[in-house]
């Protein structure tokens, strides 16, 4: 029973890392970026590439690099394509899906279709034993990374000028623009950060197993569910939803099996939306839609 707790938490950690990027791009900007999964993949392959230079410590070194790589990819995507589609989320979805297809194939052409491994640093070998519960250090690292990211994002959103501008643009684009906020630049930065976080998530995922060109897509559906359940653009919503979904997943899996767990999680979200159709936390607004 208790042994499922750390498993649930570590699922939650990975989910949260991915969902954090989505709270920026989807939550703040309303862009359904299907290529988000490929930014995750790009982050993971960054760690793989850096192995040549940093060998065992690649994961640590990759964190900032992957943030930049994925962030820049996001920035390019925003500049050349997504910018034309603001206010038309469903078209963006289709467009970015095309981008995601192409990026996956690029990865296949560069790195080959088979999965590759990234060696975890030696100081992450072993596990922490608490009574009957053993948690691998890699899992602890993912959880810690998720917590660190949440804190950093919270500070950015609530304690920095840029973060304030970002929230202003999200709440009322026109009024923010009237008040002198250059909304275009805010959009770029927001998208950069959101995509960069996907890269960080990708690095973290290399600790959970081999990585391949479709790494990101496997997690993306669940991560979107986290954002939907948590409430659009709500940091605390994303945290709570990720933990809840991770726990639910791990416990249902424990009692039945993995395939039933997915169905139960889906049913639970539909049921939850009956009570709170807009997710856990809702930004109050007088807008109609």
């Amino acid at each position, binding site marked *: 029973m208790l042994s499922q707790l750390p498993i649930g938490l570590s699922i939650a950690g990975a989910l949260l890392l991915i969902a954090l990027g989505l709270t920026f791009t*989807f939550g703040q900007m*309303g862009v*359904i970026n299907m290529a988000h999964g490929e930014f995750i993949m790009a982050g993971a392959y960054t760690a793989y590439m850096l192995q040549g230079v940093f060998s065992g410590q690649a994961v640590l070194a990759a964190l900032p690099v992957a943030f930049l790589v994925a962030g820049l990819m996001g920035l390019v995507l925003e500049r050349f*394509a997504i910018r*034309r589609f603001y*206010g*038309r*989320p*469903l*078209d963006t*979805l*289709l*467009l970015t*899906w*095309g*981008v*995601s*297809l*192409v990026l*996956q*194939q690029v990865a*296949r*052409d560069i790195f080959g279709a088979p999965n590759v491994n990234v060696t975890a640093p030696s100081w992450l070998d072993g596990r922490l034993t608490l009574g009957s519960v053993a948690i691998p250090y890699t899992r602890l690292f993912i959880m810690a990374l998720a917590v660190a990211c949440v804190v950093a994002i919270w500070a950015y959103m609530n304690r920095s000028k840029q973060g304030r501008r970002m929230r202003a643009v999200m709440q009322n684009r026109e009024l923010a623009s009237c008040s002198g906020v250059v909304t275009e630049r805010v959009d770029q930065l927001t998208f950069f950060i959101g995509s960069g976080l996907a890269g960080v998530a990708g690095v973290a995922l290399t600790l959970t197993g081999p990585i391949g060109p479709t790494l990101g*897509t496997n997690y993306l*559906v*669940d991560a*979107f*569910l986290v954002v*939907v359940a948590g409430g659009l653009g709500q940091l605390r919503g994303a945290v709570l939803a990720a933990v809840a979904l991770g726990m639910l997943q791990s416990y249902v899996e424990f009692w039945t*099996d*993995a*395939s*039933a767990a*997915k*169905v139960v*999680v*889906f049913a639970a*979200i*539909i049921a939850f*939306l*009956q009570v709170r*159709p807009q997710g856990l936390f809702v930004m109050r607004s007088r807008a*109609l*839609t």
Partner: protein
Amino acid sequence: MSALTRGKALLTGKYRGYVVFVSVALLLLAVAPAALDPFRLSLLAKYLCLAIAALGIGLAWGQGGMMTLGQGVFFGLGGYAMGMHLKLTEAGDNGLPDFMTWSGVEELPAIWEPFRNPVFALAMVVVLPVVVATALGVLVFRQRVRGAYFAILSQALAAAFVIWLVGNQGLTGGTNGLTNFYDIFGMYPEEDSTKTTFYFIVVIAVGVLYLVARHIVRSRFGRLLVAIRDGEDRVRFLGYNPATVKTIVFATSAAMAGIAGALYVPVVGIISPALLGVVPSIELLVAVAIGGRFSLAGALLGGVLMNWARTTFSESMPDGWIYIQGGLFILVILVAPKGIAGLAGQIGDLVARRRALRTAPAPAPEPGVKEEVPV
């Protein structure tokens, strides 16, 4: 405009659609069977099956604004209902389907039992998708969950469905799905006559379902649907309940996907999770977007064209096809958001504007005013 010319215009307008419909029907019913060998004919039947599912998406998404990324689920429910019946007829009165024996199942699961009855199985082809879609529709649309949220939920449904199918090997055949059919309502699948027969059944289904969809779109109900797509709240303020309309249309599109799946099984000879997941479901939607989401014929066309292109190009260059598909797709969304069906209109607009500019230098169009494309 006099009554006479108005009548004439109406007639030519009506006449044109009629001519196109009849010529396409002739092409499919007479020319194609004569010109194509049974193998190619069977491939065309496969594309047409997928086009039926695309038609359903055209109805739900193009007309109703419900972007469903989970049509594979309904396609699968129809397909499995058909596949289960075929497997049971092959197994005989007390036998087990072959894959169950392999995975160590000794007794026929209770849920399989009624599918022995062909009437029940064929009814389930439509009933199962409709029930699931109605349940989801009622729960989701009534809570005014829509747009991107709905898209994500339908995608999650597809993901969960496929994982469940794969996880329950003994019940569903797992990753392999249901395949190796050798008795399709008394016909042997490899025979040319079987292929031709099912081709004609599929073509007739396409024609009938197209007319049904067209009837829905042209009715008052269809007007309401388009109105909901373009301004759901306004329709609500007028006293209608958008949730009901959307649920009915979503269920209709699910039924079409179910029929498509059921026809796909005898035509292609397999139904498996790989055909139903997140990616195939999006691919169907993509086909509709490329064909033209605002036109039912465009949806059908897209379904056939995209799947034809996939087969043709992935035969010759399996990796290149993905670049083509992705690139084509990005291009269509950027340049022609209304797809192939909308292209004629777009070009017409462009030509007309050019001509107008040449004859009389009209004032420049207001900057920043773009044509609105409903999402």
